[in-house]
């Protein structure tokens, strides 16, 4: 298993944020993490990469996280934070190079230069590769930051709300990129708010409610009328189409 969580819990003082989470992610999966605001999605992702202390067991390739140094972790998993703020006026190309340098590589070597060119072309970054990350659009920035994560060449990418702030075209574009990566063998864990998007993109969905994992399975098993009502406290309209389900919230309970 690329990532395995056993009985994971997170507490802030006396407050229980996550409890008894058990989850496994294997090769070539796209796992969607869904749940209402405050259900613990971001906390869970942060705990997975050791950004916040947790109890229970987290292991990458059967190695416990506590035995993995920050340096080694950067070769197991790449993380795209919800925060997309870049402090300095770096070019898109340099942002990608930072991903490579994180794992001890350098884009001056032919091997990593080729990897960079590959990421630039697969993410359509060619027209903006020399531009400042502070000047590009939201969609371009999301792609550039994903490119940085890809340059770490990890078997797993964890992305916290990668579609936030993106227009429909760029959301679909990102979906295509994720699916292409999956075909190449990369696994992903992404937190999402759009049920339709989640159902179409992900091979499996994990649904959180108040810090507990209430469902983990195929999208059609997880996104049922009853469960959506229970977890989100809204009624939803679920329509099956040829392209996959369309799930729309209709009324609040």
């Amino acid at each position: 298993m690329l990532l395995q969580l056993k009985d994971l819990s997170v507490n802030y003082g006396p407050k229980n944020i996550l409890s008894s989470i058990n989850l496994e992610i294997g090769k070539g999966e796209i796992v969607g993490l869904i749940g209402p605001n405050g259900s613990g999605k971001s906390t869970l992702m942060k705990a997975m990469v050791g950004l916040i202390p947790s109890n229970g067991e987290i292991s990458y390739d059967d190695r416990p996280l506590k035995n993995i140094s920050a340096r080694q972790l950067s070769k197991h998993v790449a993380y795209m934070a919800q925060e997309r703020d870049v402090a300095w006026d770096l070019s898109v190309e340099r942002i990608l190079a930072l991903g490579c340098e994180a794992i001890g590589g350098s884009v001056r070597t032919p091997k990593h230069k080729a990897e960079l060119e590959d990421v630039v072309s697969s993410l359509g970054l060619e027209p903006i590769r020399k531009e400042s990350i502070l000047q590009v659009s939201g969609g371009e920035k999301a792609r550039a930051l994903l490119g940085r994560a890809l340059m770490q060449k990890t078997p797993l990418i964890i992305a916290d709300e990668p579609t936030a702030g993106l227009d429909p075209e760029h959301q679909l574009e990102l979906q295509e990129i994720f699916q292409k990566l999956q075909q190449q063998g990369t696994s992903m864990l992404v937190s999402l708010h759009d049920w339709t998007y989640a159902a179409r993109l992900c091979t499996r969905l994990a649904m959180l409610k108040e810090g507990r994992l209430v469902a983990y399975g195929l999208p059609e098993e997880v996104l049922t009328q009853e469960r959506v009502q229970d977890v989100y406290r809204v009624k939803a309209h679920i329509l099956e189409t040829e392209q996959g389900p369309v799930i729309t919230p209709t009324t609040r309970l």
Partner: protein
Amino acid sequence: MTKHPDAPLIVILSLIAIALFLTSLMIGAADLSIAQLIEAAFASEKTPVSIVFWEIRVPRALLGVITGATLGLSGAVLQGLLRNPLAEPGLIGVSSSASLGAVIAIYTGLTITMPYALPAFALLGAAIAAVLLPMLAGGRGQTLTLILAGVAISSIATALTSLALNLSPNPFAAMEIVFWMLGSLNDRSMQHLYIIAPFIVVGWALLLITGKGLNALSLGEETAHTMGVSLPRLRFCAIVGTAASVGAVTAVTGTIGFIGLIVPHLLRKMVGGEPQRLLIPSAIAGACLLTLADITVKLFGPQSNLKLGVLTAIVGAPFFLWLIIKQRRALI
């Protein structure tokens, strides 16, 4: 081997630094010709000119280069660490704590009996700030809490310095405190340089190894952590490196502001905004700027009594304002 992208910039800045260093050696209260100075530099016996050269001009010029380089380098590191273009060495409270240590040495009269009590106390002040800072900022030591802790330490040190001035036993002690605090390279000897040398070497070494971590930190603390950067280690190197090197130069020169703030700004665009590439050019440019400022002070002559720290502030503040206006769009 691929050519380093900043090689031309580093070479040009180094040549300017050497030229300014030599110019600084040529200027001083005693009116000496270049020929006299060259002769003094290689004189086998001590002559009045060789004493002026080796015991006054060389230590002063060297101290200028070391101080400027320290301020430029630590400014670039702290701006990278705090992800804030307004950060400077003074922000984390090291300079004001070093000043407080020096002021205590003057206030208690220790400087009269022990000539090196002043730098020793100033170094102690900087060391205390370096220990207090992570304690106040908390275990996780995030950027905002680090800045707030630095501001708190700085405020306490400034308040205690004011108290020492307020309760000063006599006007001469008060005058000495004020003059010392204004910052100067005047009348410093090679002994001063020997005392601070170990702190400078350790400080610079710690600051120079932060480059890669600072680059990753451009993308945020969480992302940097998952890019293999140990944030506690990075903070340790940046804060202890700054405390050791800036504490050491402040211990000898007094407070000299604005160099650490301005230098990284001047160079940032030339290095593609990258924190790691900013480090060495900032150190060399800091050395250039401070040596230039000291040459200006020397040109005013000893009778003007103009202090270096005053000059850097008077020139630095409007210059900084101009930079802000120029970069306003990018900053917003």
